[in-house]
């Protein structure tokens, strides 16, 4: 019943047959039924560019990881979890220090969101289970952590042998993991950091901040070695940094290709599947690199042929919407006739990527990710401004995600600064990155359609005055 779905997710027929027993078992545990599969196929066709092989291959990586995650306990000796905002490099370094058959690594919240949420639109039972078991509703808990807790307590995914989390710019992971530790007895390793810089400091990090990050990373690695019973290797760290840099730079190239194209050549919801692999530790490193290479070529071809998903000449926006479970929102923006040139945090200015004084050194000790992540309101605002300037957008759609303690403080500051510095309008859209119960799509539609009309009128006036 799911053959077509898996074909849409880039599986070859022989792989589907080979994997059928595992998929059957995982889908039974997950409660995926025929109507869910039909809904999934429809959503993929409606919201994503599944005619592109690169997009299908990315979907395939997520679907494989979903099956791997559900069956992790019976197929591996140890299970290690993490989730956003823990970045990829420390995780990958730990993962590559172990054998695949021994230890399974995953970011379960992300995997479930990108598959059960985005594809099947069936996240609510997980959220409710999380709410009933320690992360109640109405208390500003992040739905990402409600989801992963819900999946564990429902017995859909196993409790891990170790959970690795970070608090770069959000206190929810550490709070949720305290619950996991104290109530459910899961060992937790916490990468502490010093996120709050003075206004104007970023991206210049001082010795103190980098050394503190490094000391915390060492402590994290020691806990990992002790609990999992393995040794971190320099080779794993180097392999991680190399793979991550290659992927990140290629992704950057793709983001720039899309951002400068007119018409917009690919739906931004498709890009999310590639983007979130920046923080999900799959062992299929070659597979994700291959998917990205293919996608870049396919998008280049569309650009060369002048093909797009939004009308040519449409007003361009910078969007901070990263609703990983709901592709309908970015689709709604595109349907309203706006070209989403770039989404945060898809693109970073070259000065962030290459000119950082601690870049090489930090990468070597595995804390490079600490430097990539915006650590303060000023960093958010600066990156937002950079994005608007680099892609010459006509307006901004700034997402206000309920329950996101990292993001919400920056929203109004960003609006004010962009309107003042660049003189372009900023629309604020309230919602939730992971929980579709927290907003009304029809209410958002009114605002998006009005904003689109406003930008079209402004663009027409500017064109007439030239």
């Amino acid at each position, binding site marked *: 019943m799911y053959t077509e779905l898996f074909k849409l997710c880039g599986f070859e027929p022989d792989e589907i047959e080979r994997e059928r027993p595992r998929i059957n078992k995982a889908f039974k545990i997950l409660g995926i039924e025929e109507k869910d599969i039909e809904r999934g196929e429809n959503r993929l066709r409606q919201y994503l560019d599944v005619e592109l092989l690169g997009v299908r291959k990315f979907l395939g990586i997520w679907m494989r990881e979903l099956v791997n995650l559900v069956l992790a306990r019976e197929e591996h000796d140890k299970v290690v979890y993490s989730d956003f905002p823990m970045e990829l490099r420390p995780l990958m370094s730990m993962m590559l220090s172990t054998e695949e058959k021994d230890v399974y690594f995953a970011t379960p919240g992300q995997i479930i969101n990108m598959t059960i949420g985005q594809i099947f639109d069936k996240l609510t039972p997980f959220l409710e289970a999380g709410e009933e078991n320690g992360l109640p509703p109405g208390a500003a808990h992040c739905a990402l952590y409600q989801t992963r807790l819900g999946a564990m307590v429902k017995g859909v995914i196993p409790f891990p042998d170790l959970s690795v989390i970070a608090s770069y710019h959000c206190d929810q992971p550490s709070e949720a993991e305290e619950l996991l530790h104290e109530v459910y007895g899961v060992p937790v390793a916490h990468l502490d950091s010093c996120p709050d810089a003075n206004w104007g400091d970023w991206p210049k990090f001082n010795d103190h901040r980098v050394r503190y990050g490094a000391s915390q990373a060492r402590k994290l690695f020691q806990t990992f070695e002790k609990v999992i019973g393995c040794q971190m290797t320099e080779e794993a760290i180097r392999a991680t940094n190399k793979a991550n840099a290659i992927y990140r730079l290629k992704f950057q190239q793709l983001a720039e290709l899309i951002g400068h194209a007119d018409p917009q050549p690919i739906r931004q919801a498709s890009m999310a599947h590639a983007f979130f692999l920046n923080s999900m530790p799959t062992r299929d490193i070659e597979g994700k690199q291959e998917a990205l290479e293919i996608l870049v070529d396919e998008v280049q071809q569309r650009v060369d042929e002048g093909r797009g998903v939004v009308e040519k000449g449409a007003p361009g926006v910078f969007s901070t919407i990263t609703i990983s479970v709901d592709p309908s929102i970015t689709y709604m923006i595109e349907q309203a006739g706006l070209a989403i040139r770039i989404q945060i945090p898809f693109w970073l200015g070259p000065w962030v990527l290459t000119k950082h004084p601690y870049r090489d050194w930090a990468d070597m000790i595995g804390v490079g990710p600490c430097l990539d992540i915006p650590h303060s309101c000023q960093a958010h605002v600066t990156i937002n401004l950079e994005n608007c300037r680099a892609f010459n957008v006509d307006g901004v759609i700034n997402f206000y995600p309920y329950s996101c303690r990292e993001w919400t403080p920056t929203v109004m500051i960003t609006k004010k600064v962009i309107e003042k510095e660049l003189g372009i309008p900023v629309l*604020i859209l309230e919602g939730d990155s992971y929980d579709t119960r927290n907003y009304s799509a029809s209410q958002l539609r*009114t605002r998006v359609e*009005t904003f689109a009309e406003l930008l079209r*009128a402004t663009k027409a006036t500017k064109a007439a005055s030239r």
Partner: protein
Amino acid sequence: MITAGVDVGAATAKTAIISDGKILSYAVIPTGDSVARAAERVTRAALEQAGLSMADLSFVISTGYGRNGVAFANKTASEIICHAKGVNLLMPAARTVIDIGGQDSKVIGVRENGTVSDFVMNDKCAAGTGRFLEVMAGVLGLDIEEMGPISCTSKEPCPISNTCTIFAETEMVSLRAEGRTREDLVAGIHKAVASRVVVMGKTVGYREQVVFTGGVAKNTGVKNSLEAGIGLPILIPEEPQIMGALGAALLAKAELSRQ
């Protein structure tokens, strides 16, 4: 060339029919349980007033939250654009529109030509909307139409939370138990609604003339509280509920001219 605008809101459905920029007729009815039925009924009512039939309509634009459910509409438009357009026809000097309807509230900046310069709309929360007033009227056992005149005699409006309808309902019950007068309670409710909208609209800014539209504009108490909050006089069109429908009808006329 006769065009119609149909605005199906959360509480009421409105249709305006125009010819050459002049209003021929309009009608307002409760939306009820079916968007499609309400749209058809209200449009037929407006047509009947003008002595017209559906076949006389050259172009119809629907707006409001139910805009996609109006089968006979040729096109849809967002109610924010329509409100600006409708107000601009009747009050061309208006530069700010405050619209408070059944389930949402908006502050709209309007250009001289009736286009939107900026806008802000409430999120999904019911505070600052007509729904808030309905709930509170229910608690006090009042008809919603009574609230405006009652509040005008208040000496000391009660302080009531403007952030959440549910919390405010609990507060109202407590204040009533403390023996606060009905007039002060109702005035406090109006102040709560108004202050929510006033704060929200500051990102757009309030420029004269300020026009108040939507069903809640019929409530004098809310109007007074809004004026106190923004420090500017507020004008209300003769029929504040039909501005969206009127704007939609005007857009329909413009669309027809383009074609």
